[in-house]
């Protein structure tokens, strides 16, 4: 049977391709854009006067990650993201590990962003503050998580249009904060002074860098939406590059502003930043336990003139963005588990679809329960004094949001490390797939008679994200234990499942990636690329035949 005939035979119902360029950008932005709302306070608390350097380092690694995702998502436009790329490039077991790490990230995403959403709302409703009202805070976060779970089981989901409106408003709002902040309050002398007098220790800086990476997690969303994007190979590179630069700009702006901004003190300004009755620098005020969960809203309120308006809407806008991001955790975890289950990396339990609502209800409920367990661990020190003592003794007294940040950084660094290796492997083993976007700076070479290009950026990115993974393991007491424990438990479960099913345990199942690739390109409407791919295959076979005859 010919390649084309097999492809036609394998055709299945497809997702509707309705996502346009702005929609694709909004999908990514509503996920990644929310990260800075969480990351800023955590990094300021950890890296103090070197927070901008921590963001710069993590930002450069993020650019490499972004470029890798852009190339891979444009070449293989299917839902599944990093897990699919690793499965394809490195085989079943590594595909499972990467997918399992992404699942950890998605479950943390649910809890961390719901937690932070309530923190931002507490700027407007003080009854929701963690410090005097930990039980109320916990209950509201729990209700939000359960509510999102219910909505996802029923099948209601924020639409692309809603994402687009919130993302558009947020881009305009953050640009305004940036504009007013840099023009009316930024003082380079203060930045120099803060960096010279409050430079952290190496340990603190490593801690800050490992937390800064959480401000850049979520590029998965663009890849996840690839199967619903029109002409993904053309649109994804455009939207990804815009997203990478936008997020990098906001992260660098906020960190430099926090360190070098003179807080607004005129008529209508909020009270001067104070801790324990003493005036403190703005960055220290933003990084303390009371404000680190809502740092962007607090910083915005200190921007001259614009701060009066920003104080009213930034907490609300931030909480909506964070809730969307939390929802993307519920949605993403269930869909990744579903996808992993269809490729027999997870049991068929995760494929169970609700009879009435036609949603993967089993996956949604299972991973929401994991998120609730994580919430309990994060909230324990604030709810119970004995637990607080244990946390102080064994985990340096890490608070709830830092605990979640630890695990988030661990999961992201692990899955991204595998994505870089998959990028290199796919460049070497699948040179025939047309790449509409290719990361620059490559070394041309010949492998098995094919011309391939070895990506230098892939190696740089792997070293960068590898170092962040090491920093996470060194500096986070809980992350060092809980992160690897999650991976080991998952791996044991995977091995038992594969053994029971009689599937190859360490090796991969047989996949016909060539048929799959033609099918993917046809389904995505990239017919020119599909023709180019089939021509490349024919040419390659002709060259081999000639070589054999010689």
């Amino acid at each position: 049977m010919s390649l084309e005939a097999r492809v036609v035979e394998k055709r299945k119902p497809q997702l509707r391709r309705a996502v346009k360029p702005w929609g694709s950008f909004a999908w990514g932005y509503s996920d990644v854009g929310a990260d800075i709302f969480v990351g800023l306070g955590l990094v300021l608390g950890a890296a103090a006067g070197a927070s901008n350097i921590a963001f710069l380092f993590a930002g450069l690694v993020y650019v490499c990650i972004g470029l890798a995702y852009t190339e891979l998502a444009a070449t293989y436009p299917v839902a599944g993201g990093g897990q699919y790329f690793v499965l394809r490039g490195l085989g079943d077991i590594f595909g499972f590990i990467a997918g399992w790490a992404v699942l950890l990230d998605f479950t943390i995403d649910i809890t961390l962003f719901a937690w932070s959403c309530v923190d931002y709302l507490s700027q407007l409703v003080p009854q929701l503050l963690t410090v005097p009202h930990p039980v109320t805070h916990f209950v509201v976060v729990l209700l939000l998580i359960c509510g999102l779970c219910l909505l996802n089981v029923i099948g209601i989901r924020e639409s692309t249009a809603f994402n687009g409106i919130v993302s558009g408003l947020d881009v305009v709002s953050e640009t305004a904060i940036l504009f007013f902040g840099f023009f009316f309050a930024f003082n380079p002398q203060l930045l120099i002074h803060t960096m010279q007098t409050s430079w952290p220790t190496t340990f603190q800086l490593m801690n800050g860098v490992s937390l800064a990476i959480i401000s850049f997690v979520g590029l998965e969303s663009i890849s996840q939406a690839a199967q619903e994007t029109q002409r993904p190979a053309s649109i994804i590179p455009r939207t990804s590059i815009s997203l990478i630069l936008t997020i990098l700009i906001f992260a660098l702006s906020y960190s430099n502003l926090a360190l070098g901004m003179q807080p607004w003190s005129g008529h209508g300004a909020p009270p001067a930043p104070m801790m324990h009755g003493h005036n403190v620098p703005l960055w220290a005020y933003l990084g303390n336990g009371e404000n680190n969960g809502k740092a962007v809203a607090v910083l915005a309120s200190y921007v001259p003139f614009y701060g009066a308006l920003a104080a009213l809407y930034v907490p609300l806008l931030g909480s909506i963005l964070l809730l969307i991001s939390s929802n993307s955790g519920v949605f993403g975890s269930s869909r990744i588990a579903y996808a992993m289950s269809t490729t027999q990396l997870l049991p068929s339990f995760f494929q169970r679809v609700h009879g009435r609502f036609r949603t993967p209800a089993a996956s949604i409920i299972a991973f929401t329960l994991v998120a609730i367990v994580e919430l309990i661990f994060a909230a324990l020190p604030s709810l119970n004094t004995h637990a607080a003592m244990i946390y102080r003794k064994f985990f340096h007294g890490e608070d709830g949001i830092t605990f979640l940040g630890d695990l988030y950084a661990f999961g992201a660094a692990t899955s991204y490390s595998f994505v870089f290796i998959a990028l290199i492997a796919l460049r070497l083993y699948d040179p025939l797939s047309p790449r509409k976007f290719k990361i620059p700076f490559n070394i041309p070479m010949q492998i098995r008679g094919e011309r391939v290009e070895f990506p230098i950026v892939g190696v740089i990115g792997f070293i960068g994200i590898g170092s962040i993974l090491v920093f996470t393991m060194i500096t986070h007491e809980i992350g060092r234990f809980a992160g690897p424990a999650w991976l080991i438990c998952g791996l044991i479960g995977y091995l038992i499942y594969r053994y029971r099913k009689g599937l190859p345990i360490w090796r991969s199942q047989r996949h016909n990636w060539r048929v799959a690739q033609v099918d993917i390109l046809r389904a995505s409407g990239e017919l020119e690329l599909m023709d180019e791919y089939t021509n490349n295959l024919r040419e390659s076979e002709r060259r081999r035949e000639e070589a054999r005859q010689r």
Partner: protein
Amino acid sequence: MNQTRFAFSFLYIALGIAIIVRLLRFGLHRELFGGVVLGLVLIAFGGYRLAFYVRARRMRVES
């Protein structure tokens, strides 16, 4: 909508130049490196969007 994006591209370039000029007026300090990078990224982003806008406009006129 395109006009708004066009205006934003200019705004980013202007903001990037303003930040770099403001920082460099204080002399060359290694502490200002992060700020200078921010200015450069702003200019790069504005330039990227602007180039895209111009290319799309030219293609529309040609077609």
